[in-house]
């Protein structure tokens, strides 16, 4: 024996006094932790992923879960994760794939920023009686307006306006494809987007016919594999998004493993059944910023210049200059996806080590666009690790027009962030295509929960704005005076363009 068994990550135990042997844990665990043996339920903790499905289903609270019940000798450098990655690669010689977002313990900049509120000298606003405007328009804004007064006294607008998306709240749902997630999960979120007056992305998974009723709320994605893209798809969407990069894996493409490409996914993505669905790292018709502008124009021309076109990039070192280049094309919005962005599967080394935090990225993009006098040319959407309304408010104060949420919407449907999305066995019916597992997610309930989340955050945003004496989201956008840095170093505060607490 050289490496041998590694210590189990989790230990599941059943309290025999509380357990009534109802077998709900056995039925619900898709990873095979539980089985019945005569009068007892036996446990194989090694199969556990900490998805909590058994705990959520147990009527008697008989199940408990312990993380790292038998740990390695603690060491600050040679962490459990570092050691286990080596054991894995020593055995396989392969690239390690992992699910969900960045799992390294980087400081969260959002948690080192605090928001402002009014006291005495500038009265706060009460959202109960004062309207707080959260309506957001995503798209190009004219640099100047040509207004003329007609003889009758009416004012005529001479400037031709670019179509914008009218979003009731600055919280949108980002791109999660059918394939990465189940159709029930996608339908639930699409319905929630429609109910709350916001929009959501298709991801690079095509547009399933079950989503057609919500198509006026969908942002259809065009990524390097061009999955599901044809003229009908482009015309159905409310807007089109070119995906250049993703925060969870900047610089690389995506592979949906062949075993997940079933008949329905093959039809929706318009790709062969059972083959790996490969999205190359670059778009092979885009090798320069001019080529990107050409694809933006091609998409606009295909849809007769009626649809906004977004470009999504991963937050990387030169994100500001790249965004400025995009702003000079006819693109209407740039989506900046920070290094905490989620994913169904990404090489661990990319997920944890490539890219920069959204807070710094969005701030530097906003500053660069303002420096160049082109901030009006493009909307900025921040994504990657937005956990609550405070993160939304802070992202907007750092210069975003709106945010995309991803993982938060999945959590609203039951996801426990166990990070095993790539295994296709999600017992919550979210990241799976197994019909019996997908069935567990009721789109009616799930859509109500996602809609509740968006409504709750929207209410909180209105309260935060009111408390700060601001009655419109537009007055919060890029308003760094409403932020202070707490325990941030000076150079980072310069990038964020915020003062320290007390200043």
């Amino acid at each position, binding site marked *: 024996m050289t490496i041998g068994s590694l210590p189990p990550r989790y230990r599941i135990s059943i309290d025999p006094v509380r357990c009534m042997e109802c077998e709900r844990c056995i039925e619900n665990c898709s990873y095979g932790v539980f089985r019945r043996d005569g009068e007892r339920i036996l446990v194989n903790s090694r199969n556990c992923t900490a998805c909590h499905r058994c705990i959520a289903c147990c009527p008697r609270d008989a199940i408990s879960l312990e993380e790292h019940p038998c740990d390695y000798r603690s060491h600050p450098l040679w962490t459990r994760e570092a050691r286990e*990655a080596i054991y*894995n*690669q020593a055995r*396989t010689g*392969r*690239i*390690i*794939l*992992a*699910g969900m977002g960045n799992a390294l313990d980087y400081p969260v900049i959002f948690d080192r920023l605090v928001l402002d509120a009014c006291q005495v000298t500038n009265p706060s606003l009460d959202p109960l009686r004062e309207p707080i405007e959260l309506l957001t328009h995503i798209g190009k804004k004219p640099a100047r307006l040509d207004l003329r007064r007609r003889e009758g006294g009416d004012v005529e607008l001479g400037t031709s306006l670019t179509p914008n998306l009218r979003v009731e709240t600055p919280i949108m749902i980002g791109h999660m494809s059918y394939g990465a997630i189940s159709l029930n999960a996608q339908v639930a979120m699409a319905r929630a987007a429609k109910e709350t007056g916001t929009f959501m992305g298709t991801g690079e998974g095509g547009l399933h016919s079950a989503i057609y009723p919500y198509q006026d709320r969908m942002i259809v994605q065009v990524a*390097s*594999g*061009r999955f599901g*893209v*044809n*003229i*009908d798809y*482009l*015309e159905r969407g409310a807007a089109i998004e070119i995906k250049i990069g993703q925060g969870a894996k900047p610089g690389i493409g995506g*592979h949906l*493993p*062949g075993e997940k490409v079933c008949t329905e996914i*093959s*039809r929706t*993505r*318009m*790709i*062969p*059944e*059972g*083959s*790996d*669905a*490969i999205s*190359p790292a670059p778009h*092979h*018709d885009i090798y320069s910023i001019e080529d990107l502008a*050409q694809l933006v*124009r*091609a998409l606009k*021309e*295909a*849809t*007769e*210049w009626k649809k906004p076109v977004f470009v999504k990039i991963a937050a990387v070192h030169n994100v500001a200059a790249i965004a400025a280049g995009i702003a000079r094309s006819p693109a209407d919005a740039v989506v900046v996806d920070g290094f905490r962005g989620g994913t169904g599967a990404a*090489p*661990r080394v990319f997920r944890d080590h490539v890219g920069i935090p959204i807070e710094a990225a969005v701030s530097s993009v906003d500053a660069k666009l303002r420096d160049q006098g082109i901030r009006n040319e493009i909307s900025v959407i921040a994504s990657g690790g937005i956990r609550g309304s405070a993160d939304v408010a802070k992202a907007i104060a750092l210069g975003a027009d709106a945010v995309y949420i991803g993982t938060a919407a999945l959590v609203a449907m039951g996801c426990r962030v166990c*990070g095993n999305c*790539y*295994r296709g066995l999600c017992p919550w019916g979210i990241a799976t295509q197994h019909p019996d597992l997908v069935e567990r997610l009721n789109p009616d309930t799930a859509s109500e929960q996602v809609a509740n989340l968006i409504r709750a955050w929207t209410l909180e945003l209105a309260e935060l704005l009111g408390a700060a004496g601001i009655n419109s989201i537009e007055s919060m956008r890029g308003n760094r005076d409403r932020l202070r840095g707490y325990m941030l170093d000076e150079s980072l505060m310069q990038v964020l363009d915020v003062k320290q607490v007390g200043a």
Partner: protein
Amino acid sequence: MAKQVAIDGKGVHYTPLNQRIRKAVEDGADEIVVSNVLGQRFIGDGLRGNVTVRIYGVPGGDLAIFMSGPTVIVHGNAEHAPGNTMDAGKLIIHGNAGDAVAHSMRGGKVFVRGDIGYRGGIHMKQYETQCPILVVGGSAQTFLGEYMAGGLLIVLGLNGPIKAREIGSGIHGGEIIIRGDVDAACLATGATQVPFTDEDRARIAPVIREYAGDFGLDPEPLVSADYTRIIPASARPFVGKYTWE
């Protein structure tokens, strides 16, 4: 009687040009002749219908991108990515074409009489009844059929030997058929050479005959020629590269 519409493309920006083409299709044109084309991009972008569009001159990039149905005939050369993400229809180019010809094409046919640039047929894909076909009369450059996920790509090499190296890099579906021998060293990772059988010949013969008919060539020497057939080594080229956390 077939309804013809003539459009003079001289100095017309691509948006009004496409608007006029769309209007003509809407009004029931069977054939649209666009003359004096000089570099206008996106001609036939997202165009539907059974119309035939004849283009005289040199159209710009992304000719017939997202097109779904029409036939476009170019009496001249074409630029970057003609037939890009095309869904259905036919594109006939009586000259040479640039890089990324038939990029991500999913259905219909692209026939090029002359040479094409780099990455021809890249990421072409098929599903259900949709199967794209790209036939090149002349030579093709490197990364031919890269990431191909389906469809049929034929290179006839009528202007001399094919220049492509790294053929079929990452190919995981479809087939590349090249007239004559191909040096095995020119095949990329993921591609493999297999014998060209009588069944293969019977399958491509109608395509070759259609191509020869469109360009006024004698089909029989091409139908009976020797070919090299290149297919994916696996439908899962990356399966051995990854392990799970």
